């Protein structure tokens, strides 16, 4: 047998040789981008395109979408977030025919159409960590198209506060002889700091304009309503205080923003500062500023950055992970790992929840995926360090026992326009069937959920003795949805007595106190003031 052990390396050299005329000192011109990609990429390649939650390698994705499908076709696209129109154009034009991804929020409708039309096949809809993991096993990229703020002559990269998944993609590609191509905003003599070393990088191009970035984590406190304040009070008293939750992750909704904003007011009154919510795994949410400034927060590790928070974060290095240059260092892979293994609680919202507490934000006609929530909202069976809340979730007195992560779903019983959140069957089931997916796109499985909170109260599902009691507990707080109307009054009373269900009055939460005056900041302007002028919100959030 004639064994060759370096075919990938040889193929890489051959490809690079094809474009040597266009490359000088590791760089090519923006105007040659399409030519370079066309020469380098071969049909059937696995191409990892950096489309993060926030930062987008949009110059390279636009160039990729212009290639001639007669020459470049049947690519297998690997991408965290299908977020831009040209991502869909890759399927429409026949350049890519297969995709593995995590989330497709803004393009979810068009993606579903492409699948229905047979132009693209979905491998799987992953969690972020799962997708990154596969880059190191069976989905190693042949080509990586990534984005950075700065490159120096040696190809060292500075990826700024929004480092997100860039190092993960680069590492998986570079160390298995894939080709790493970077679009940068500018070339510098010396990088602000080195986030990715130059010998992981093959080619650099200065983009026609700085990469696209979206402020996805800014929630305007003006839009938080009294019901969200009520639910925040229930969470604080019924879960954080009761279980002494110190390490946690919050979703990005207005309801969790409300929790962040009542820490310095309601939480302070409860004497919980320093006792709960000290260690966070979270993007730099502007709504966390008042809690940080009031001394609640010890540390925050971030998946990515947030536009406008740069100066504030840089001025709080005790709290945030920052480089020697002062700016935030984020890393989605590490942060997802931290959220999975090192936090005691995840809390987030959903659009639909069934009687077994399975939840999904998937709606018919859209294929959206869930990003990080399924990972963060799951119990890591490999955890081996203990904490008070983790142990409280199980009640075994056997010699060998384990604890459990607290996973909370926080929902109003109805969405606006009268659509119930509690449903007999998730739309995800029908969606999975119609899209030909092997699994219904469930965001968080009910058996991972320990608590559900609505405006009606808290269901302590982890305390339920059996599936029947679990369902009764959920129905007890499901309001006047069909599921809630099925609750038996006597049974609900019994569940309240045994502590499986708690209504606001059981937790000492007064509904009349639930109003916006409890919010430590009631506007973006207030957040700026809390930050001492360090927070610089994007234009669209300014109303003064």
């Amino acid at each position, binding site marked *: 047998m004639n064994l060759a052990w370096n075919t990938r390396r040889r193929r890489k050299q051959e490809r690079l040789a094809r474009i040597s005329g266009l490359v000088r000192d590791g760089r090519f011109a923006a105007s040659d981008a399409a030519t370079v990609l066309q020469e380098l990429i071969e049909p059937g390649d696995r191409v990892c395109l950096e489309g993060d939650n926030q930062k987008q390698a949009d110059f390279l994705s636009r160039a990729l979408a212009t290639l001639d499908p007669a020459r470049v076709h049947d690519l297998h696209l690997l991408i965290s977030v299908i977020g831009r129109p040209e991502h869909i154009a890759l399927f429409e034009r026949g350049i890519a025919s297969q995709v593995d991804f995590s989330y497709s929020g803004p393009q979810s409708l068009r993606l579903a159409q492409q699948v229905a039309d047979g132009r693209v096949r979905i491998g799987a809809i992953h969690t972020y960590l799962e997708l990154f993991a596969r880059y190191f096993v069976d989905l190693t990229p042949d080509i990586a198209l990534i984005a950075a703020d700065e490159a120096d002559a040696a190809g060292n990269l500075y990826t700024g506060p929004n480092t997100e998944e860039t190092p993960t993609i680069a590492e998986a590609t570079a160390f298995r002889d894939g080709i790493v191509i970077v679009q940068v905003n500018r070339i510098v003599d010396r990088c602000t700091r080195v986030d990715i070393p130059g010998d992981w990088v093959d080619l650099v191009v200065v983009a026609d304009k700085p990469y696209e970035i979206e402020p996805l984590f800014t929630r305007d406190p*003006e839009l938080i309503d009294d019901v969200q304040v009520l639910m925040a009070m229930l969470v604080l008293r019924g879960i954080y205080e009761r279980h002494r939750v110190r390490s946690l992750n919050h979703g990005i909704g207005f309801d969790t923003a409300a929790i962040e904003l009542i820490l*310095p*007011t309601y939480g302070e009154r409860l004497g919980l500062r320093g006792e709960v919510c000290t260690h966070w795994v979270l993007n730099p949410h502007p709504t966390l500023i*008042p809690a940080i*400034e*009031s*001394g609640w927060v010890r540390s925050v590790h971030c998946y990515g950055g947030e536009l406008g928070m740069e100066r504030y974060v840089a001025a709080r290095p005790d709290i945030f992970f920052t480089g020697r240059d002062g700016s935030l260092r984020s890393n989605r892979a590490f942060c997802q790992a931290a959220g999975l293994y090192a936090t005691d609680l995840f809390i987030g919202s959903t659009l639909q929840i069934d009687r077994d507490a399975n939840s999904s934000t998937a709606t018919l006609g859209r294929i959206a995926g869930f990003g990080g929530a399924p990972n963060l909202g799951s119990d890591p069976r490999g955890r081996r360090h203990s904490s008070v809340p983790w142990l409280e979730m199980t009640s075994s007195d056997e010699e060998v026992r384990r604890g459990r992560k607290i996973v909370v779903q926080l929902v109003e019983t109805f969405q606006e326009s009268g659509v119930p959140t509690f449903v007999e069957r998730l739309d995800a089931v029908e969606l999975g069937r119609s899209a030909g997916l092997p699994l219904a796109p469930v965001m968080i499985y009910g058996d991972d959920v320990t608590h559900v909170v609505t405006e009606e109260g808290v269901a302590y599902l982890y305390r339920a003795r059996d599936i029947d009691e679990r369902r009764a507990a959920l129905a007890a707080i499901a309001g006047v949805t069909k599921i809630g109307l099925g609750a038996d009054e006597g049974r609900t009373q019994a569940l309240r007595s045994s502590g499986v269900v708690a209504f606001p009055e059981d937790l000492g939460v007064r509904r009349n106190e639930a109003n*916006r*005056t409890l919010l*430590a*900041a*009631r*506007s973006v*302007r*207030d957040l700026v*003031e*809390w930050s001492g002028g360090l927070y610089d919100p994007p*234009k*669209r*959030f*300014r*109303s*003064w």
Partner: protein
Amino acid sequence: MTAPLLLTESFAERGARERARALLDPQSFRELIGPFERIASPYLAAQGVVPQSDDGTVVARGTIAGVRACVVATDGRFLGGSIGEIGGAKIAGALELARRDAQRGAPTRLVLALDTGGIRLQEANLGILAVSEICDAIVALRELMPVIAVIAGRVGVYGGLSLSTALCSEIIVSEGARVGLNGPDVVETESGIEEMDSSDRPLIWGVTGGRLRFRQGFASELVSDDVPAIRAAVERAFQAPNELGPLVAQAFPDPRLERDDFLRAMEIEL
């Protein structure tokens, strides 16, 4: 740890009734034609709009710094604080009664706490007539005593009531409030998005925001969104001289300049 914001009492957060209560001395609030009298607009239901029992305008008597007073407040949350027949009559009526009191030598201090997008489209003809009466009544009352406007809500003042505001003796604005004749969406509809992009918030606040109105001298005070600060400003306003001279044009750049050059010449950030 200091947290000054936790000590402030937001004015903008409150509804009209609570704003009126906040401007009057503690315990002195007495509402006239309150919600239980149910004088609500009869024109809205036929146009698919549920009416509010006070029509979005609250009239309250009480005292300010111990002196007889009346606060009229509009609620920007109900139909954008728009002024129809009832709200308009409440404002005009209060101004007329304050004038009667002043003529009788028992003056009532009058404060207009406005938060309104303008005349209510669903009652347009009645609204425009009411505003003409309000303008007349403000000028008439000003011949005898100051009329104070507090513009510190989330909407600010647009439309016909912006003329009424401009007629007041002293105008107190917050940074978050706006004062303009045409709302940004109306300018965009009538003159195009190149003229005004109604989604460009910094531009909107740049050309109509409280900060600019104060810089122009249109407003006499720029206040933070804090009840005690606004109360103090109101008291100062009643001490100020009540001069009723003609309104004359102030200097502005050549309007033939390109839009952005014009705005920059006015030191408006783009």
